[in-house]
């Protein structure tokens, strides 16, 4: 199908954007990178008369890190910019890695982290690391702002907690703890230019005695939404890390997965791979954490 006709709005302030959204509420979509939206429009899966672009909003592509405040990623920040950002690479390596290996160079140069979250694909690559980092999203509408933990954000394939007239303004990620480590691993048939068949992100922090202070593990592409693994995390928290503990935690992670058979992989293979990747991810997180770096 060829592209249907639509009007492109390019507001230069947040207020203007929110006004436009409200005015055209009947047939409106917000455009950031367009890498998910435009193909859907081309395929005729979405009919829309007004596109409201975020690309001229001031400060929307910010990536800022402060030691007290953590990381803020504006809704216009491109995947490639986030993946290349020195502070993201230093403090949030799992996110940097996801942003650098997902999709293709061209898509990473246009697509945004915010868009990746709002698109709410079960396989969203940035979702798993952001869940592991306990990120929140800042949603704004004409009446005000609210902050939603990412854990509560995803509702189903393609569905998330954003209201029709809300914008995802920014993503906030807390400062990582001392003595912590994090990492993201994904499996796909091709080495590059591919969608994740299974993705696992982890975060581990140790206390002064070397016991696990905090543990978070998140999965992509193995459930209707990206998910945290509560059972796995509970098993790890407060305990002395050991190969046996990690093996048990990895096995527990599988129980948080609710994979399906589809054209990309079978549920059985996905479950097995959650186990393998969870173990690898936890091992990497642990060795980073024990190395003392944060």
């Amino acid at each position, binding site marked *: *199908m*060829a592209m249907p006709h639509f009007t492109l709005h390019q507001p230069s302030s947040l207020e203007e954007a929110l006004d436009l959204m409200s005015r055209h509420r009947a047939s409106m979509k917000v455009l950031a990178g367009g890498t998910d939206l435009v193909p859907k429009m081309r395929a005729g899966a979405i009919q829309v008369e007004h596109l409201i672009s975020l690309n001229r909003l001031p400060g929307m592509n910010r990536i800022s890190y402060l030691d007290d405040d953590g990381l803020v990623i504006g809704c216009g920040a491109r995947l490639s910019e986030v993946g290349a950002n020195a502070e993201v690479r230093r403090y949030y390596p799992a996110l940097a890695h996801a942003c650098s290996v997902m999709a293709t160079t061209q898509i990473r140069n246009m697509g945004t982290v915010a868009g990746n979250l709002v698109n709410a694909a079960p396989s969203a690559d940035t979702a798993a690391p952001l869940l592991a980092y306990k990120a929140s999203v800042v949603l704004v509408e004409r009446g005000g702002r609210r902050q939603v933990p990412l854990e509560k954000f995803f509702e189903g394939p393609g569905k998330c907690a954003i209201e029709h007239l809300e914008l995802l303004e920014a993503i906030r990620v807390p400062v990582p703890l001392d003595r912590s480590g994090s990492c993201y691993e994904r*499996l796909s*048939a*091709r*080495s*590059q*230019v*591919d*969608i994740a068949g299974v993705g696992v992100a982890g975060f581990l922090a140790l206390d002064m005695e070397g016991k696990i202070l905090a543990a978070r593990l998140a999965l992509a592409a193995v459930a209707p939404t990206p998910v945290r693994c509560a059972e796995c995390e509970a098993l790890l928290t407060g305990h002395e890390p050991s190969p046996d503990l990690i093996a048990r935690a990895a096995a527990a992670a599988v129980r948080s997965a609710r994979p399906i058979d589809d*054209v*990309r*992989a*079978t549920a*059985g*293979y996905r479950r*097995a*791979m959650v186990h*393998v*990747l969870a173990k690898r991810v936890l091992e990497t997180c642990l060795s980073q954490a024990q190395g003392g770096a944060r």
Partner: protein
Amino acid sequence: MNNNPAIIGASLPRLDARDKVTGRSIYVDDMMLPGMLYGALLRSPLPHARIKRIDVSKARALKGVKDVIVGADTPQIRYGNWRLVPQSQDELPLAVDKVRFLGDEVAAVAALDKETAERACQLIEVEYEELPGLFTVEDATAEGAAIIHDDSPGNVSLNRKITYGDLEAGFKRADYVRDDVFTVHAVSHAYMEPCSSIAAPDEGGRVTLWTSTQVPYIVQCLLAATLGLPENHVRVIKPNVGGGFGGKMELRPWEFCAAFMALRTGRPVKFTLNREQELAFGRRRHAMTIHSKVGFTKDGKITAKDFNVLLDGGAYNSMGPTATFLCGNFGAMLYRYPAYRYLGRHVYTNKPPAGAMRGFGAPQALFAAESQMNMAAAELGIDPIELRIINAMETGDEIPEVATISSCGFKESLVKVREMSGWDAKRKEKSPGRGIGVGCYSFISGGVFNWFNTKYNFATAEVRVFEDGTAHLLTMATDIGQGSDHTLRQILAAELGIGIEKIRLTAADTAVTPKADLGTWGSRVTLMSGNAVIDAARKIKEMLIPVIFSQFDLNQIHDVAFEGDRVFAKARPDKGLTFGECVYKALRGRRGEPLTAFGAYTPRNRGLVSPAFSFGAQVAEVEVDQETGLIKVQKMYTAHDCGVPINKMGVEGQLEGSIHMGLGYALMEDFVMKDGRTLNTNFLDYKIPTAQDMPPGESVEIDTYEPEGPFGAKEAGEGLVSPTAPAIAEAVHHATGYRCMDLPITPPKVLKGIGKLK
């Protein structure tokens, strides 16, 4: 022999390369004609059904729609490439009465713009009576199965038998017999340029078709037949083509619909497919079930082979008959089989038709044959390369009544690849997850069998030379991206002794270029069209040689050389003229009659299969992650015999492209299908390796000379697609102990094979 090493065997960049990589080259979909209409096809949503009723009135009434056609509006003349066997011609451009696969073309619309044409298609009402769908060769050949084509009860459209030697005695004297079943899957050609065609009405009820095709002459003949027009009323022009790999070697429904509606409306009509349509409904490589039984003596000599193949042909014959024929031929290549029996059965199923695809029956036959050699080697306790050397074909070998091998560098390839890959040491070294394996191939250099039943020569060329020292080569040879235009220019330049840049080339226009040429497939172009070019060039030389003799009053014992844009007495280079001067004088002597010559090539007395055969051996090194099952191919080593390479750079490109295609076939490409519907119809889910997946490689060309080929050349573009899958499968086995007998070698299969996944 090669008298021009600056041109033959050199590594020359193609003249069209810059335009192609900078996006300047014009393809059919880039072309616009005044008043042009846009076409769209309505396809069957069911895999097998009877058409009860079609109502196009709503579509016709839509604003902007200029024409709507269904099968009943057309002449309903069946077509197919195998004109020699008319009952094999089983296709109609638009379905009449029945649809046989999900995607079968039912109606076509021409409108002012593409969106209107597509909307009109949705307004066509078709009432179907669904019939049972048959999706596997087993179901299709089962007792009481529904019949897909009325004239093929049992759904077997074709049986092909080859038999020679005493099979029973061969197995009796075998010390060791292997009996295995292999299955191989369908894959897509995935050419970069989706199919596109424009037809324009021409004066006097004639029609011109610009189309992305590998076979302009075949399209001309079959289009004329299906339109009910004289052949000469149809002109087919092939502009730049972005790859074919066998997927564009037939008349296609949209070519017919474009021409038919152009004649009806008096306006040009364009059809362009998109990737989703290509993957969902396009031609594909034959899936096969291969039952192979081979006997060996205890010292490794093959005694007999029994090769039984079921080809999953999909809904129509397409190029299936040739694939059935060739699969049996490839099953008997590479090694000396004292006794051989082949039974190939081409089976109809309710799926998109399988057609020709790079390798044409060889990738399937050789995956089975080469895997089986590797399995036998292990059981016999003989090194796999050694076992091959024991049985390897040699120059002069004969397959009774089928082929004679006039040049063969197979043993040399095996020896070379063993050495360059460090085989002996790496094979002994057992480190978990790392493995090394070998696979081999032989391939044809064009076909001998005249299935199209052409009355013309298989390949032709016309050469014109001018007093400004230039030449014009006219040929119907079809460059679809492989670089044959450049190769033919090189051959002509070498023969006439002039620079490549002096040659204007007009190719693949059926109204202008000499009749005929069967197109690009079966690796035929370099050998066949190359020979035709040489034939024409030699006739031109005969016109120029007398000029030198008269001009310089040469003794009859002299010979004349053509080199460096000069024509001169070989022993007295000072006695000569520039090429242009020589043409000028010849022109004067002929009182103005232009110097034009026709050349032709048709293989004669070259058996039933091909005038020449290429050979080669390939070694793959892999690393397997034994927890995830992911396979990384670390390095590929290739030693191959393509005769004398005309353009080394072209040969290297073909080798790299073959490895890339072989990699996809071996590891990840696969159609996911449910009830006749293809589910993965984009490149996100139909996985083709990217450049990033390409392993590094080393390659060596074995020095042979093919007496039947131009300057000693033979095939280099197709055979190499076959050894990669069996080499990788063997390397995975060496690394993990898992033996793949059903391609592709996916991570879950590896894990199941080593007991790590249920």
